[in-house]
């Protein structure tokens, strides 16, 4: 679990390596820090593929996962391990790691020997040259490389997190589009039954060509609806396939028939802004950058600490509300004793970085709030469809059937109702999709996964 101190730890490790005078060249070391940070935020294990054996093992694992309809967790796992672009990103950590090691080494000393003969003189010169500049700048280079490694570690973790969340979204979109296609087909079936019955009625002499044309026109439009839904389902699935990095036979994976049911209750989250500030990788990156700036400028003598959030952040208090909990957390950076004019530029650069941290933090807080409100609101909408709209639609269908039983309504009314019902189910699917997407957005905004939902109370969306 990455905490605000993790980058300190990373720095400390780097410093230790520097003092030791040699650095590791194993790329896994750096990548594991990234993977750990991503794991804490997404629940997904990323892995570096180094050999054919690794790759074959992964393919076997993917084949196993693809046996069953692809769950969201399986999709995310495949994406994190298999996506070639993401794998390429993983190696950035390795490169940065190697740079750190390189920075700890000097160029090999040079040996020179020269003899000049001329005018009876002979001059012989021997020299040993050492890379003095390299020696002098080595601590600086090492520090720079270590900072780049830290930045890269965070960037790779962020790339994993971003890809994982994008894959979750793609999975939700693909499953919802598939479900929508099923219902579009149901509407078309109702239209088909309706026009087939009207055709029989026309044959029997009970209906006119106009009646038949009307029913057939609806049937034709319902057919267009299926084609559209099919196109959307294909596009959404292809997007997911790209996220997974699959091709060939593996791209023929099966998707579940429907989205997961709505949880019994939405997650109750306290202190989402605090969570966002402590968890989000962009906040951590901004802080690390500011600290790095201080180090680069040789600022050491701290006079006091400043809460970065106070910079340009108006204290918004609402009557009766407790003070925003953002202040409770120590998003603080040191302020230095500036002294002479010589460091005026250093001060400006440092203050600029403080401002950037504040901007990122304020943004993160707002996104966390918006994410949570969106999540709760879309839960309410989806629940409204499940508990109000769908039961009413069901009741309408039941009552219409009773009227058909009493010859008070025609089969066409039954079929028209089936069409309308499918429309409501379609809206229900959309609402459920919006909820699951809002959950991913919230997780992205606070930088961590929500606690596992309590088991659903089994109020199924109808088939």
């Amino acid at each position, binding site marked *: 679990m990455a905490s605000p101190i993790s980058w300190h730890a990373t720095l400390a490790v780097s410093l230790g390596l520097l003092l030791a005078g040699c650095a590791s060249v194993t790329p896994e070391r750096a990548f594991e820090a990234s993977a750990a940070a991503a794991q804490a935020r997404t629940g997904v294990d990323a892995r570096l593929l180094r050999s054919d054996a690794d790759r074959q093992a992964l393919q076997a694992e993917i084949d196993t996962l693809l046996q069953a309809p692809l769950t969201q967790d399986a999709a995310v796992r495949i994406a994190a391990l298999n996506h070639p672009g993401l794998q390429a990103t993983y190696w950035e950590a390795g490169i940065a790691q190697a740079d750190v090691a390189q920075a700890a080494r000097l160029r090999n000393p040079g040996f020179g020997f020269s003899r000049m003969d001329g005018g009876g003189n002979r001059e012989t010169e021997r020299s040993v040259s050492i890379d003095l500049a390299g020696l002098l700048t080595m601590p600086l280079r090492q520090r720079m490389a270590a900072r780049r490694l830290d930045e890269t570690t965070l960037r790779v973790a962020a790339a994993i997190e971003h890809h994982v969340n994008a894959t979750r979204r793609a999975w939700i979109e693909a499953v919802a589009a598939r479900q929508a296609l099923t219902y579009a087909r149901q509407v078309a079936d109702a239209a088909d039954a309706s026009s087939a019955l009207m055709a029989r009625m026309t044959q029997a002499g*009970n209906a006119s060509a106009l009646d038949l044309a009307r029913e057939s026109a609806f049937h034709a439009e319902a057919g267009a609806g299926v084609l559209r839904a099919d196109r959307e389902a294909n596009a959404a699935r292809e997007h997911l396939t790209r996220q997974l990095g699959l091709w060939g036979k593996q791209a023929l994976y099966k998707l579940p028939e429907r989205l997961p049911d709505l949880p019994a209750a939405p997650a109750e989250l306290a202190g989402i802004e605090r969570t966002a500030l402590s968890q989000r990788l962009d906040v951590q990156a901004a802080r690390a950058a500011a600290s790095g700036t201080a180090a680069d400028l040789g600022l050491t003598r701290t006079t006091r600490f400043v809460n970065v959030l106070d910079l340009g952040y108006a204290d918004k208090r609402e009557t009766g509300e407790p003070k925003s909990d953002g202040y409770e957390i120590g998003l603080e950076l040191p302020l230095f004793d500036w002294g002479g004019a010589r460091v005026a530029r250093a001060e400006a650069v440092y203050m600029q970085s403080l401002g950037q941290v504040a901007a990122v933090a304020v943004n993160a807080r707002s996104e966390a709030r918006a994410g949570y409100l969106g999540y709760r609101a879309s839960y309410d909408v989806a629940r409204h469809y499940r508990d109000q709209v769908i039961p009413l639609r069901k009741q309408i269908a039941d009552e219409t*059937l009773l009227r058909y039983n009493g*010859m008070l309504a025609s089969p066409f009314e039954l*079929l028209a109702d089936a069409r309308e019902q499918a429309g409501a189910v379609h809206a229900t699917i959309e609402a459920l999709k919006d909820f699951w997407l809002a959950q991913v957005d919230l997780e992205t905004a606070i930088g961590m996964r929500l606690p596992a939902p309590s088991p659903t109370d089994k109020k199924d969306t109808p088939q």
Partner: protein
Amino acid sequence: MTNRRSFLTGAGAGITALGASLVSRAGAASLPEAPTHTSSATAAPLAPTGGRPYNPVVTLNGWTLPWRMKDGVKEFHLVAEPVVREFAPGMQANLWGYNGQSPGPTIEVVEGDRVRIFVTNRLPEHTSVHWHGQLLPCGMDGVTGLTQPGIQPGKTFVYEFVARHAGTFMYHPHADEMQQMAMGMMGFWVTHPKNPRQHAVDRDYVMLLSSYDIEPGSYTPRTNTMLDFNLWTINSRVFPGLDPMVARLGDKVRIRVGNLTMTNHPIHLHGHRFEVAGTDGGWVPKSARWPEVTTDVAVGQMRAIEFVADAPGDWAFHCHKSHHTMNAMGHDVPTLIGVDHQGVAEKINKLVPGYMVMGDKGGSMGDMKMPLPANTLPMMSGDGPFGNLEMGGMFTVLKVREGLKRGDYGDPGWYRHPAGTVAREWTGDGAEALPPAPRAPDARPAPAPAGQAMDARKPGAKDMTGHEHH
């Protein structure tokens, strides 16, 4: 104060008559009691307890209003109020009526009686009572705004006049008429002749025709419907909720039918010939009557038909408009006769679980007992001795039996036909025994069920030229 009188038990259709109670509901001591009736079964005829004698009538699935005599005046008390009326077992309607029922109780008086009727209004709006067909002082005619102010809610008005001529009448509001009559406000009125032997019959049935539009699943009529009613009732009752009319073989029977719907009703009786003996204008001279089996009762009219019940059996009595002998039906349901559902039915069933093909062979639902919306009667029903009667609305049965007691109105059960007198399936000895069934000249075979459309198009150009020069 509660008085109890015993009422006949209507044994038919499983209906049990409850004792009607006479409940004092009038506030002032000087008002006569306003009896109320809790049952929709046929009450026994109410024999006169005072005043001039007469032969009381039987209100089918209804009752007669008791009165009191005060200083030589017959005093009645009608209470206009919301009621719940059972149309048939399984269906109740929120109506407006009088003294607990719709239609209101029948009022019976004798020619020459001075009559005083108190009318208490317990409706949420004003009302009045028009004494349809009576010859009375103009100010007693009950037309709101024209002859009197409306009776406001909570108020009691008194009407007083002499029943000048014998005959058959009705009463109904003449205030917000369309709404109040669409809600069931009406009642029957009989003025008996001074001489009880004049026009005397053995059984005298009275009924009012009314119509309602009650959406399946609901309880209250849609009062703004003008034409498209879905429940056609006799005394706010529909078959199979209507009691049978019972007669002893050889009885002289009168049936008086008043029409307060918005359309005419050709009333038809099976197995007998009758004469129209009276209208709301009075009695028809014997020399002016002619035999009928159906008589049309126009809107706002009264017809009294008379016949001798000389044919034993169970005889249908009904309005001859076939949609008036049905209960609620879907007026927009298309005709499915002859439509082959093969393949389509499966498709529909997939979408609408519980779907069952109906109507492809006609409108009969046979013995299917399908679940229906709440408070909704089957369109055509009634269990007869030979199966489903497939009737509803304005339909009941005249049961003529030998040896019934006078005054016995109980349902004698289904008729036992003498051997060999019931239509039966032909099971003869081979086709030769059947007489030939010649076909009409130029008869064409019906089109194949799934074949071409019937040749009912405009004559083709060829035919046109063929006939042009004839």
